[in-house]
Protein backbone atom coordinates (compact mmCIF):
# COMPACT_ATOMS: atom_id res chain seq x y z
CA UNK A 1 0.00 0.00 0.00
CA UNK A 2 2.72 2.44 1.04
CA UNK A 3 4.93 1.16 -1.74
CA UNK A 4 2.36 2.25 -4.28
CA UNK A 5 2.14 5.68 -2.68
CA UNK A 6 5.91 5.99 -2.79
CA UNK A 7 6.00 5.05 -6.46
CA UNK A 8 3.43 7.73 -7.25
CA UNK A 9 5.32 10.31 -5.20
CA UNK A 10 8.52 9.32 -6.92
CA UNK A 11 6.99 9.76 -10.35
CA UNK A 12 5.74 13.18 -9.28
CA UNK A 13 9.14 14.14 -7.87
CA UNK A 14 10.97 13.05 -11.00
CA UNK A 15 8.63 15.14 -13.11
CA UNK A 16 9.09 18.14 -10.86
CA UNK A 17 12.85 17.88 -10.90
CA UNK A 18 12.74 17.32 -14.63
CA UNK A 19 10.84 20.54 -15.12
CA UNK A 20 13.38 22.38 -12.97
CA UNK A 21 16.46 21.14 -14.82
CA UNK A 22 15.07 21.97 -18.23
CA UNK A 23 13.64 18.61 -19.25
CA UNK A 24 10.20 20.11 -19.73
CA UNK A 25 10.17 18.94 -23.32
CA UNK A 26 10.69 15.32 -22.25
CA UNK A 27 7.90 15.31 -19.69
CA UNK A 28 5.67 17.75 -21.51
CA UNK A 29 5.89 16.56 -25.10
CA UNK A 30 7.62 13.21 -25.51
CA UNK A 31 5.98 11.44 -22.57
CA UNK A 32 2.39 12.48 -23.36
CA UNK A 33 2.74 11.38 -26.98
CA UNK A 34 4.20 8.04 -25.98
CA UNK A 35 1.51 7.64 -23.33
CA UNK A 36 -1.37 8.29 -25.70
CA UNK A 37 0.08 5.92 -28.24
CA UNK A 38 0.62 3.15 -25.69
CA UNK A 39 -2.86 3.74 -24.31
CA UNK A 40 -4.72 3.53 -27.61
CA UNK A 41 -2.67 0.72 -29.11
CA UNK A 42 -2.71 -1.17 -25.81
CA UNK A 43 -6.46 -0.98 -25.41
CA UNK A 44 -7.16 -1.99 -28.99
CA UNK A 45 -4.73 -4.90 -28.71
CA UNK A 46 -6.36 -6.05 -25.48
CA UNK A 47 -9.79 -5.98 -27.11
CA UNK A 48 -8.52 -7.94 -30.10
CA UNK A 49 -6.84 -10.40 -27.74
CA UNK A 50 -10.21 -11.05 -26.09
CA UNK A 51 -12.04 -11.22 -29.38
CA UNK A 52 -9.63 -13.84 -30.68
CA UNK A 53 -11.18 -16.37 -28.31
CA UNK A 54 -14.74 -17.40 -29.09
CA UNK A 55 -17.68 -17.41 -26.71
CA UNK A 56 -18.36 -21.14 -26.93
CA UNK A 57 -21.43 -21.15 -24.72
CA UNK A 58 -24.21 -18.71 -24.00
CA UNK A 59 -23.96 -18.26 -20.25
CA UNK A 60 -25.98 -15.16 -19.33
CA UNK A 61 -26.69 -14.80 -15.63
CA UNK A 62 -30.44 -14.63 -15.28
CA UNK A 63 -31.17 -11.88 -12.80
CA UNK A 64 -34.91 -12.41 -12.76
CA UNK A 65 -37.86 -14.26 -14.18
CA UNK A 66 -37.34 -15.87 -17.60
CA UNK A 67 -39.72 -15.45 -20.52
CA UNK A 68 -41.94 -18.51 -20.41
CA UNK A 69 -45.70 -18.57 -20.01
CA UNK A 70 -47.94 -15.69 -21.01
CA UNK A 71 -49.33 -15.14 -17.55
CA UNK A 72 -45.95 -14.91 -15.88
CA UNK A 73 -44.29 -11.54 -16.05
CA UNK A 74 -40.77 -11.60 -17.39
CA UNK A 75 -38.02 -9.40 -15.90
CA UNK A 76 -37.32 -7.86 -19.29
CA UNK A 77 -34.07 -6.15 -18.38
CA UNK A 78 -32.57 -8.34 -15.67
CA UNK A 79 -33.33 -11.43 -17.71
CA UNK A 80 -33.56 -10.08 -21.26
CA UNK A 81 -34.56 -12.48 -24.01
CA UNK A 82 -34.30 -9.97 -26.84
CA UNK A 83 -31.49 -7.86 -28.27
CA UNK A 84 -33.25 -4.72 -27.14
CA UNK A 85 -33.48 -6.07 -23.61
CA UNK A 86 -29.77 -6.88 -23.65
CA UNK A 87 -28.97 -3.35 -24.79
CA UNK A 88 -30.99 -1.97 -21.88
CA UNK A 89 -29.34 -4.41 -19.51
CA UNK A 90 -25.89 -3.30 -20.70
CA UNK A 91 -26.83 0.37 -20.41
CA UNK A 92 -28.04 -0.21 -16.86
CA UNK A 93 -24.88 -2.14 -16.10
CA UNK A 94 -22.45 0.34 -17.62
CA UNK A 95 -24.18 3.60 -16.73
CA UNK A 96 -25.79 2.73 -13.40
CA UNK A 97 -23.81 -0.26 -12.15
CA UNK A 98 -26.94 -2.37 -11.88
CA UNK A 99 -25.20 -5.43 -10.44
CA UNK A 100 -23.37 -3.49 -7.78
CA UNK A 101 -26.65 -1.88 -6.83
CA UNK A 102 -27.82 -5.29 -5.62
CA UNK A 103 -24.98 -5.42 -3.14
CA UNK A 104 -25.76 -6.75 0.32
CA UNK A 105 -23.78 -7.10 3.48
CA UNK A 106 -24.01 -10.26 5.54
CA UNK A 107 -24.24 -9.52 9.26
CA UNK A 108 -24.36 -12.32 11.77
CA UNK A 109 -25.97 -12.22 15.17
CA UNK A 110 -24.97 -14.74 17.81
CA UNK A 111 -28.22 -14.50 19.69
CA UNK A 112 -31.03 -13.25 17.58
CA UNK A 113 -34.28 -12.38 19.33
CA UNK A 114 -36.62 -13.55 16.58
CA UNK A 115 -35.16 -17.03 16.19
CA UNK A 116 -33.46 -17.52 19.53
CA UNK A 117 -30.10 -18.41 18.08
CA UNK A 118 -27.50 -17.71 15.45
CA UNK A 119 -28.82 -15.71 12.54
CA UNK A 120 -27.40 -14.07 9.44
CA UNK A 121 -29.13 -11.09 7.90
CA UNK A 122 -28.27 -9.75 4.47
CA UNK A 123 -28.71 -5.99 4.57
CA UNK A 124 -28.79 -3.90 1.46
CA UNK A 125 -25.47 -2.10 1.18
CA UNK A 126 -25.20 0.70 -1.34
CA UNK A 127 -22.01 2.46 -0.23
CA UNK A 128 -19.71 0.82 -2.73
CA UNK A 129 -22.24 1.38 -5.46
CA UNK A 130 -22.68 5.03 -4.53
CA UNK A 131 -19.04 5.96 -4.26
CA UNK A 132 -17.90 4.05 -7.31
CA UNK A 133 -20.68 5.65 -9.32
CA UNK A 134 -19.70 9.02 -7.87
CA UNK A 135 -16.08 8.44 -8.78
CA UNK A 136 -16.79 7.39 -12.35
CA UNK A 137 -19.20 10.22 -13.07
CA UNK A 138 -17.03 12.88 -11.48
CA UNK A 139 -14.09 11.58 -13.47
CA UNK A 140 -16.15 11.78 -16.64
CA UNK A 141 -17.24 15.34 -15.92
CA UNK A 142 -13.74 16.44 -15.00
CA UNK A 143 -12.51 14.92 -18.27
CA UNK A 144 -15.23 16.74 -20.19
CA UNK A 145 -14.42 20.00 -18.46
CA UNK A 146 -10.86 19.70 -19.73
CA UNK A 147 -12.20 20.08 -23.26
CA UNK A 148 -11.89 23.82 -22.78
CA UNK A 149 -8.19 23.20 -23.41
CA UNK A 150 -8.75 21.08 -26.50
CA UNK A 151 -10.86 23.30 -28.69
CA UNK A 152 -11.03 26.99 -29.53
CA UNK A 153 -13.56 28.54 -29.17
CA UNK A 154 -14.91 26.63 -26.20
CA UNK A 155 -18.25 25.03 -27.12
CA UNK A 156 -21.25 26.04 -25.06
CA UNK A 157 -21.84 22.50 -23.76
CA UNK A 158 -18.52 22.65 -21.93
CA UNK A 159 -19.38 26.06 -20.47
CA UNK A 160 -22.73 24.67 -19.44
CA UNK A 161 -21.11 21.77 -17.57
CA UNK A 162 -18.83 24.27 -15.83
CA UNK A 163 -21.72 26.50 -14.91
CA UNK A 164 -23.59 23.59 -13.32
CA UNK A 165 -20.47 22.18 -11.71
CA UNK A 166 -19.62 25.55 -10.16
CA UNK A 167 -23.14 26.59 -9.24
CA UNK A 168 -22.23 27.12 -5.59
CA UNK A 169 -20.14 30.14 -6.68
CA UNK A 170 -17.63 29.67 -3.91
CA UNK A 171 -14.35 31.50 -4.25
CA UNK A 172 -12.42 32.64 -7.26
CA UNK A 173 -11.65 30.70 -9.33
CA UNK A 174 -15.00 29.15 -8.70
CA UNK A 175 -14.96 25.85 -6.88
CA UNK A 176 -15.98 22.92 -9.05
CA UNK A 177 -17.94 20.33 -7.09
CA UNK A 178 -16.81 17.38 -9.16
CA UNK A 179 -13.15 18.02 -8.42
CA UNK A 180 -13.79 17.82 -4.70
CA UNK A 181 -16.20 14.91 -4.92
CA UNK A 182 -13.76 13.01 -7.09
CA UNK A 183 -11.23 13.25 -4.31
CA UNK A 184 -13.80 12.26 -1.70
CA UNK A 185 -14.82 9.20 -3.70
CA UNK A 186 -11.23 8.14 -4.24
CA UNK A 187 -10.43 8.53 -0.56
CA UNK A 188 -13.47 6.40 0.26
CA UNK A 189 -12.36 3.69 -2.15
CA UNK A 190 -8.88 3.79 -0.67
CA UNK A 191 -10.10 3.71 2.93
CA UNK A 192 -12.23 0.70 2.10
CA UNK A 193 -9.11 -1.12 1.03
CA UNK A 194 -7.19 -0.04 4.09
CA UNK A 195 -9.75 -0.39 6.85
CA UNK A 196 -12.04 -3.20 5.71
CA UNK A 197 -10.33 -6.37 6.83
CA UNK A 198 -11.50 -8.51 3.93
CA UNK A 199 -10.81 -5.99 1.23
CA UNK A 200 -7.39 -5.36 2.71
CA UNK A 201 -6.70 -9.07 2.52
CA UNK A 202 -7.51 -9.33 -1.18
CA UNK A 203 -5.86 -6.05 -2.19
CA UNK A 204 -2.64 -6.09 -4.15
CA UNK A 205 -0.20 -3.38 -5.20
CA UNK A 206 -2.16 -3.43 -8.48
CA UNK A 207 -5.15 -2.13 -6.55
CA UNK A 208 -3.46 0.57 -4.49
CA UNK A 209 -1.32 1.96 -7.27
CA UNK A 210 -4.13 3.18 -9.54
CA UNK A 211 -5.91 4.67 -6.53
CA UNK A 212 -2.86 6.60 -5.39
CA UNK A 213 -2.14 7.58 -8.96
CA UNK A 214 -5.65 8.95 -9.41
CA UNK A 215 -5.44 10.73 -6.09
CA UNK A 216 -2.13 12.21 -7.26
CA UNK A 217 -3.74 13.39 -10.47
CA UNK A 218 -6.70 14.92 -8.69
CA UNK A 219 -4.62 16.62 -6.00
CA UNK A 220 -2.17 18.08 -8.51
CA UNK A 221 -5.13 19.19 -10.62
CA UNK A 222 -6.80 20.88 -7.67
CA UNK A 223 -3.49 22.55 -6.84
CA UNK A 224 -3.20 23.91 -10.33
CA UNK A 225 -6.62 25.46 -10.08
CA UNK A 226 -6.70 26.74 -6.55
CA UNK A 227 -3.20 27.00 -5.12
CA UNK A 228 -0.03 26.67 -7.19
CA UNK A 229 -1.78 28.11 -10.19
CA UNK A 230 -0.99 27.40 -13.75
CA UNK A 231 -1.55 30.15 -16.21
CA UNK A 232 -4.37 28.65 -18.13
CA UNK A 233 -3.90 30.78 -21.22
CA UNK A 234 -0.36 29.42 -21.54
CA UNK A 235 -1.57 25.91 -20.75
CA UNK A 236 -4.12 26.12 -23.49
CA UNK A 237 -1.57 27.25 -26.02
CA UNK A 238 0.64 24.36 -24.99
CA UNK A 239 -2.13 21.71 -25.04
CA UNK A 240 -3.50 22.92 -28.38
CA UNK A 241 0.04 22.62 -29.72
CA UNK A 242 0.18 19.03 -28.54
CA UNK A 243 -3.17 18.06 -29.99
CA UNK A 244 -2.39 19.73 -33.29
CA UNK A 245 0.91 17.85 -33.48
CA UNK A 246 2.88 21.08 -33.52
CA UNK A 247 4.03 21.21 -29.92
CA UNK A 248 5.43 24.45 -28.58
CA UNK A 249 7.09 24.74 -25.25
CA UNK A 250 9.72 27.45 -25.76
CA UNK A 251 8.72 30.71 -24.20
CA UNK A 252 5.71 29.24 -22.41
CA UNK A 253 5.56 29.68 -18.71
CA UNK A 254 4.51 26.22 -17.45
CA UNK A 255 4.98 25.61 -13.76
CA UNK A 256 6.35 22.46 -12.15
CA UNK A 257 3.00 21.39 -10.80
CA UNK A 258 1.58 21.35 -14.29
CA UNK A 259 4.35 19.06 -15.49
CA UNK A 260 3.70 16.80 -12.49
CA UNK A 261 -0.01 16.68 -13.35
CA UNK A 262 0.71 15.90 -16.98
CA UNK A 263 3.25 13.22 -16.09
CA UNK A 264 0.86 11.48 -13.70
CA UNK A 265 -1.87 11.49 -16.35
CA UNK A 266 0.60 10.04 -18.83
CA UNK A 267 1.50 7.35 -16.31
CA UNK A 268 -2.16 6.48 -15.95
CA UNK A 269 -2.53 6.19 -19.72
CA UNK A 270 0.48 3.89 -20.00
CA UNK A 271 -0.61 1.79 -17.03
CA UNK A 272 -4.21 1.48 -18.18
CA UNK A 273 -4.08 -1.24 -20.87
CA UNK A 274 -1.85 -3.49 -18.78
CA UNK A 275 -3.90 -3.46 -15.63
CA UNK A 276 -7.30 -4.13 -14.18
CA UNK A 277 -8.38 -0.76 -15.54
CA UNK A 278 -9.22 -2.56 -18.78
CA UNK A 279 -12.50 -3.34 -17.09
CA UNK A 280 -13.65 -0.24 -18.96
CA UNK A 281 -13.79 -1.91 -22.39
CA UNK A 282 -13.97 -5.33 -20.72
CA UNK A 283 -17.41 -4.96 -19.24
CA UNK A 284 -18.86 -4.83 -22.74
CA UNK A 285 -17.39 -8.25 -23.49
CA UNK A 286 -18.83 -9.99 -20.45
CA UNK A 287 -20.73 -13.08 -21.67
CA UNK A 288 -22.80 -13.28 -18.50
CA UNK A 289 -24.27 -9.87 -19.27
CA UNK A 290 -24.19 -9.24 -23.00
CA UNK A 291 -26.03 -12.32 -24.21
CA UNK A 292 -29.79 -12.73 -24.40
CA UNK A 293 -31.36 -15.35 -22.15
CA UNK A 294 -33.10 -17.01 -25.08
CA UNK A 295 -30.77 -19.99 -24.91
CA UNK A 296 -33.55 -22.52 -25.37
CA UNK A 297 -35.02 -20.55 -28.23
CA UNK A 298 -32.01 -19.87 -30.42
CA UNK A 299 -29.06 -22.19 -30.88
CA UNK A 300 -25.74 -20.71 -29.88
CA UNK A 301 -22.88 -21.99 -32.03
CA UNK A 302 -19.62 -23.17 -30.54
CA UNK A 303 -16.91 -22.94 -33.21
CA UNK A 304 -14.81 -25.67 -31.61
CA UNK A 305 -17.68 -27.99 -30.81
CA UNK A 306 -16.02 -31.42 -30.76
CA UNK A 307 -17.59 -34.36 -32.62
CA UNK A 308 -20.21 -36.36 -30.75
CA UNK A 309 -18.81 -39.40 -29.02
CA UNK A 310 -21.07 -41.24 -26.70
CA UNK A 311 -22.45 -44.58 -25.65
CA UNK A 312 -25.04 -45.05 -28.38
CA UNK A 313 -28.32 -46.86 -28.10
CA UNK A 314 -27.21 -49.82 -30.28
CA UNK A 315 -24.20 -50.29 -27.99
CA UNK A 316 -26.51 -50.06 -25.01
CA UNK A 317 -28.91 -52.60 -26.40
CA UNK A 318 -26.04 -54.90 -27.29
CA UNK A 319 -24.89 -54.74 -23.71
CA UNK A 320 -28.24 -55.38 -22.06
CA UNK A 321 -30.29 -57.13 -24.75
CA UNK A 322 -31.06 -60.33 -22.87
CA UNK A 323 -31.99 -58.60 -19.65
CA UNK A 324 -34.11 -56.13 -21.54
CA UNK A 325 -35.90 -58.90 -23.41
CA UNK A 326 -36.61 -60.69 -20.17
CA UNK A 327 -38.00 -57.55 -18.63
CA UNK A 328 -40.26 -57.12 -21.62
CA UNK A 329 -38.71 -53.88 -22.80
CA UNK A 330 -39.14 -53.10 -26.51
CA UNK A 331 -36.02 -53.89 -28.55
CA UNK A 332 -34.65 -52.91 -31.94
CA UNK A 333 -33.24 -56.39 -32.41
CA UNK A 334 -34.46 -59.52 -30.64
CA UNK A 335 -31.87 -61.66 -28.87
CA UNK A 336 -30.60 -64.78 -30.64
CA UNK A 337 -32.77 -67.71 -29.68
CA UNK A 338 -30.66 -70.18 -27.80
CA UNK A 339 -31.72 -73.72 -28.44
Amino acid at each position, binding site marked *: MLESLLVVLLIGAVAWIGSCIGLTAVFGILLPYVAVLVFLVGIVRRMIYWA*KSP*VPFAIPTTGGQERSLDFIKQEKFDCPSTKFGVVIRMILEVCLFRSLFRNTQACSFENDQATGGYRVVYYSSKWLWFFSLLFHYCFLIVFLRHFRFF*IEPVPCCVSFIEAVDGFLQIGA*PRFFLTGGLLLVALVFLLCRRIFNERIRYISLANDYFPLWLLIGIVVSGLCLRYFDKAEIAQVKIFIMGLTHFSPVIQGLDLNGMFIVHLTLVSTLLIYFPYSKLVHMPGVFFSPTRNLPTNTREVRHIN*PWNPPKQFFTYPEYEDTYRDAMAQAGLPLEKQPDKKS
Partner: protein
Amino acid sequence: MYNKKAVCIGIVILVALLSSPFWVGLFGTDYKETGVVKPNQDACVEDAAFMRAQHMRLLNEWRDQALRNENRTYVAANGKKWEISLQNTCMKCHTNYAGFCQKCHLSNSVSPYCWTCHIIPTEGK
Protein backbone atom coordinates in the same frame (compact mmCIF):
# COMPACT_ATOMS: atom_id res chain seq x y z
CA MET B 1 -11.30 -13.01 -34.35
CA TYR B 2 -14.88 -13.77 -33.35
CA ASN B 3 -17.88 -11.41 -33.32
CA LYS B 4 -15.84 -9.31 -35.71
CA LYS B 5 -18.54 -6.81 -36.54
CA ALA B 6 -19.49 -5.94 -32.99
CA VAL B 7 -15.90 -5.84 -31.78
CA CYS B 8 -14.76 -3.64 -34.65
CA ILE B 9 -17.60 -1.20 -34.11
CA GLY B 10 -16.73 -1.19 -30.43
CA ILE B 11 -13.07 -0.52 -31.11
CA VAL B 12 -13.85 2.32 -33.50
CA ILE B 13 -16.25 3.98 -31.06
CA LEU B 14 -13.89 3.58 -28.14
CA VAL B 15 -10.84 4.87 -30.00
CA ALA B 16 -12.88 7.77 -31.36
CA LEU B 17 -14.04 8.73 -27.88
CA LEU B 18 -10.69 8.28 -26.20
CA SER B 19 -8.76 10.19 -28.84
CA SER B 20 -11.31 13.00 -28.93
CA PRO B 21 -8.95 15.58 -27.40
CA PHE B 22 -6.90 15.26 -30.58
CA TRP B 23 -9.64 15.68 -33.11
CA VAL B 24 -12.18 18.00 -31.49
CA GLY B 25 -9.69 20.80 -32.11
CA LEU B 26 -10.37 20.38 -35.82
CA PHE B 27 -13.82 21.83 -35.31
CA GLY B 28 -12.32 25.05 -34.06
CA THR B 29 -9.49 27.36 -34.83
CA ASP B 30 -5.86 27.24 -33.89
CA TYR B 31 -4.78 28.83 -30.64
CA LYS B 32 -1.16 29.89 -30.65
CA GLU B 33 -1.27 33.09 -28.62
CA THR B 34 -3.66 34.79 -26.27
CA GLY B 35 -3.84 37.99 -28.31
CA VAL B 36 -4.19 40.12 -25.20
CA VAL B 37 -3.89 43.86 -25.82
CA LYS B 38 -1.85 45.21 -22.94
CA PRO B 39 -2.54 48.68 -21.61
CA ASN B 40 0.21 51.29 -22.00
CA GLN B 41 1.27 51.59 -18.36
CA ASP B 42 4.02 49.15 -17.26
CA ALA B 43 3.01 48.70 -13.64
CA CYS B 44 -0.17 47.23 -12.21
CA VAL B 45 -1.25 47.00 -8.58
CA GLU B 46 1.10 44.07 -8.08
CA ASP B 47 3.72 42.65 -10.43
CA ALA B 48 2.65 40.95 -13.65
CA ALA B 49 3.28 37.34 -12.59
CA PHE B 50 1.19 37.78 -9.46
CA MET B 51 -1.56 39.52 -11.36
CA ARG B 52 -1.70 36.80 -13.98
CA ALA B 53 -2.13 34.03 -11.47
CA GLN B 54 -4.01 35.77 -8.70
CA HIS B 55 -6.06 38.63 -10.18
CA MET B 56 -9.32 36.78 -9.59
CA ARG B 57 -8.46 36.33 -5.94
CA LEU B 58 -7.37 39.95 -5.58
CA LEU B 59 -10.61 41.16 -7.13
CA ASN B 60 -12.61 38.88 -4.88
CA GLU B 61 -10.78 40.26 -1.87
CA TRP B 62 -11.29 43.85 -3.02
CA ARG B 63 -14.99 43.26 -3.35
CA ASP B 64 -15.19 41.89 0.18
CA GLN B 65 -13.07 44.74 1.56
CA ALA B 66 -15.04 47.43 -0.15
CA LEU B 67 -18.54 46.15 0.28
CA ARG B 68 -18.42 44.17 3.46
CA ASN B 69 -15.73 46.01 5.45
CA GLU B 70 -16.06 49.42 3.84
CA ASN B 71 -12.33 49.53 3.44
CA ARG B 72 -11.37 51.29 0.26
CA THR B 73 -7.59 51.20 0.59
CA TYR B 74 -5.30 48.42 -0.56
CA VAL B 75 -1.62 48.30 0.36
CA ALA B 76 0.40 46.52 -2.32
CA ALA B 77 3.45 44.37 -1.68
CA ASN B 78 5.73 47.28 -2.49
CA GLY B 79 3.93 49.53 0.01
CA LYS B 80 2.07 51.57 -2.54
CA LYS B 81 -1.50 52.43 -1.66
CA TRP B 82 -4.36 51.94 -4.11
CA GLU B 83 -7.99 52.78 -3.99
CA ILE B 84 -10.08 49.65 -3.98
CA SER B 85 -12.32 50.20 -6.95
CA LEU B 86 -12.88 48.26 -10.17
CA GLN B 87 -14.21 51.28 -11.95
CA ASN B 88 -11.71 53.85 -10.74
CA THR B 89 -8.54 51.82 -10.37
CA CYS B 90 -8.52 48.76 -12.64
CA MET B 91 -10.50 50.12 -15.50
CA LYS B 92 -8.53 53.32 -15.62
CA CYS B 93 -5.80 51.42 -17.47
CA HIS B 94 -7.63 48.28 -18.59
CA THR B 95 -10.10 50.02 -20.78
CA ASN B 96 -10.27 47.41 -23.48
CA TYR B 97 -12.71 44.77 -22.19
CA ALA B 98 -12.82 42.70 -25.38
CA GLY B 99 -9.10 42.96 -26.03
CA PHE B 100 -7.97 42.31 -22.48
CA CYS B 101 -10.40 40.51 -20.13
CA GLN B 102 -12.34 38.61 -22.73
CA LYS B 103 -9.33 37.35 -24.61
CA CYS B 104 -8.30 34.82 -21.96
CA HIS B 105 -11.68 34.40 -20.35
CA LEU B 106 -13.44 33.32 -23.50
CA SER B 107 -10.75 30.94 -24.71
CA ASN B 108 -10.52 29.24 -21.37
CA SER B 109 -14.18 29.35 -20.62
CA VAL B 110 -13.91 31.51 -17.57
CA SER B 111 -17.06 33.41 -16.69
CA PRO B 112 -16.39 35.79 -13.85
CA TYR B 113 -19.42 37.32 -12.24
CA CYS B 114 -18.01 40.87 -12.08
CA TRP B 115 -20.61 41.96 -14.55
CA THR B 116 -23.65 40.86 -12.68
CA CYS B 117 -23.26 44.13 -10.72
CA HIS B 118 -20.79 46.23 -12.71
CA ILE B 119 -21.48 47.59 -16.13
CA ILE B 120 -19.46 45.99 -18.88
CA PRO B 121 -17.16 48.65 -20.31
CA THR B 122 -17.85 49.33 -23.94
CA GLU B 123 -15.29 50.03 -26.63
CA GLY B 124 -14.01 53.61 -26.99
CA LYS B 125 -15.36 54.87 -23.72
